[in-house]
């Protein structure tokens, strides 16, 4: 790498260094909000790692998030805490490999429906197995991780997911994914092993989602399948990533911050008409910001660029 290549990773680390001391000054209300923002920032960025370049819209976020939460519930009191997160990552990776190999032959709307069904399938499997062998469905998660601890872990994972995304974009794998997104058939004819490329990135993305689930579970004391595999998580991640723009590495974060803030303002000020206002907000977003905030920025840059060129023209 030459000097210019270090700018992005250094910027990511610098931003993290600025955000890291926040828990020392922020009160617990602001911490709760920040934890929420970070959770969705990791999930949306991880989502866009796979879905951004390939254009495969996945609704399986909740499935992997829930797997992570359940890993924490099962192993949190049995293994040292520091070991649970890598184990969760491993479980996420294994399941994602199986799922990826068996389903990434699907595309378009079939893939969307499949991934949505996947979360439901995992949820029913967990319920069945818990009832049959565990004699319980809900699980207590009595693990003392403070809000600050959760914040720092999420921040660390966010740095990792951004760096991973950066490396993928610069690698042959990144180009392969872009080619698949443009036209999968052409990509295959050009000699790209599309299945390997898709599964590899799907697994990386799912692993991050699983780890986030494991990090968040101790916050709720108790989980059951409907809490862990809540489909709302999948939809919110999708909406946030699309608002920001899934084409750029930093795009999803640009969607997460305004939407998480909007949710908070609506919830705090209009608790009884939250859903209606949220629906209106989505309509406005889709109508006025169809290509995401990243799109707006690019547009703005174009306009400025053109204006600059015009002014520079000596004939005027």
């Amino acid at each position, binding site marked *: 790498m030459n000097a210019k290549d270090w700018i992005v990773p250094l910027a990511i680390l610098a931003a993290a260094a600025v955000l890291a001391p926040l828990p020392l000054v922020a009160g617990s209300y602001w911490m709760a909000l920040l934890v929420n923002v970070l959770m969705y920032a990791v999930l949306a960025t991880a989502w866009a790692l796979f879905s951004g370049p390939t254009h495969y819209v996945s609704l399986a976020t909740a499935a992997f998030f829930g797997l992570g939460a359940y890993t924490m519930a099962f192993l949190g009191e049995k293994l040292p805490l520091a070991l649970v997160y890598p184990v969760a990552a491993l479980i996420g990776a294994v399941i994602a490999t199986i799922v990826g190999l068996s389903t990434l032959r699907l595309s378009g709307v079939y893939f969307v429906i499949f991934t949505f069904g996947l979360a439901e399938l995992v949820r029913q499997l967990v319920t069945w197995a818990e009832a049959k062998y565990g004699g319980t469905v809900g699980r207590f998660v009595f693990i003392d991780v403070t809000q600050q601890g959760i914040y720092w872990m999420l921040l660390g994972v966010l740095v990792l997911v951004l760096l991973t995304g950066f490396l993928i974009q610069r690698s042959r794998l990144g180009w392969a994914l872009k080619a698949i997104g443009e036209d999968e058939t052409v990509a295959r004819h050009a000699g790209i092993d599309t299945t390997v490329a898709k599964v590899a990135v799907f697994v990386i993305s799912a692993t991050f989602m699983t780890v986030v689930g494991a990090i968040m579970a101790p916050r709720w004391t108790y989980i059951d399948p409907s809490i862990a595999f809540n489909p709302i998580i999948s939809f919110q991640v999708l909406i946030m990533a699309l608002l920001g723009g899934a084409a750029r590495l930093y795009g999803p974060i640009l969607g997460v911050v305004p939407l998480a*803030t909007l949710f908070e303002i609506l919830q705090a000020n209009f608790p009884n008409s939250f859903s209606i206002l949220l629906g209106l907000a989505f309509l406005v977003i889709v109508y006025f910001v169809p290509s995401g905030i990243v799109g707006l920025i690019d547009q703005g840059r174009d306009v400025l660029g053109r204006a600059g060129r015009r002014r520079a023209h000596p004939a005027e």
Partner: protein
Amino acid sequence: MRITHPSRRAVVGGIAAAALAAPQVRAQPGPVKIGFSISKTGPNAGGANVTTLPNYQLWLKETNDAGGLRLPGGQRRAIEFVEYDDRSQSEEAVRNIERLVNQDKVDLLLPPWGTAMNLAVAPSFNRGGFPHLASTFFVERQPELVKRWNNMFLFLDRPSTAITALTDLLATLKDKGLGNTVALASVQDQFGLELVSAARAGIARAGFQIVMDRQYPPGTQDLAPIISEAARLKPDMFLAFSYPPDTLALTEQARIAGLNPKVFYTAVGTAFPLYKQRFGANAEGVMGIGGVDVTNPRIKDYIERHNRIVGREPDRWASTTTYSTLQVLTQAIERVGIDKAALVRDIGANSFDTILGPIKFVDNQRVDQWWVGQWQQGEFVALAPTKVGGTKAPIFPKPAWPTA
């Protein structure tokens, strides 16, 4: 000319309000701010809207009409509610409580509806030292929980106690010609599983024989196969540990399939006013979880006030319990004022006079309460345990479903 943009101003105002709403100077005799997060939307909304929210509204109206909460000095302060919808999501409930405590600076908190939600917010209640008077909370590990959170008071006893009351009652019916075959059905979630596993042990102890033991996932639409199987086996007892929608569906199917056991028991929802409205005369003799002493003038009076002020009937199980939590809180405030630590101490140590009779906590848990009720002539009366008092004799055997 000045052009104003109301929409932009509104947006900026909203953000500013959210950011700056924090530290307002409050004059001492102002209202007592009481906050809660509850599921107004999502899958929990049904339970929250029957059992919890109406009682909060009833308490608010009655207390403020009387001039407010009475404090130790004798002066009164009105109640002001700050309420948020958690949309049936644990994470939202946690964040709502954080917001109530740190941004809205509420004086006291009321709990959400349901076991999972109460567990999710319990660490936040505990961190702030708020008394947590849970009335819709029901797990086997309760003794362990109250050790962990000494500010938590549990108004419902454990599933195993509920089952012991039921199997003890069934054992007394043996002499009256109850046979010994039992068909079990249970919903496959925490509630159903804890009850059914306690029930298997209790049934074995009572010397009955299980001839069928079926589980179904929550939200199952078609329960006909379970009822048909039971109808073929003709058990002496049919016991279902069910939730409101399945309770209604199982009863309806049993009526259609002519499943006529001597004891017909369904769990949550049997005590809802809706059950009576839906089944009318068919409800006669059906047993269920909960039950109240309807001849008690205080409960009669409570039902009447609930009807008048909220505009609908309370259920005959956790509604009365939820209202009693608010009575306990009112009386403790009257003794020690709005002081969270003193309230926790006072509630743990003293006896309270409520619509359910005197309430005295043993290790933060309320132990004596009704667990089995039965529809008798249009009312859901308490049957067991008899040591609590106010119980009636069961109608036995349950009359066959009327044909119509």
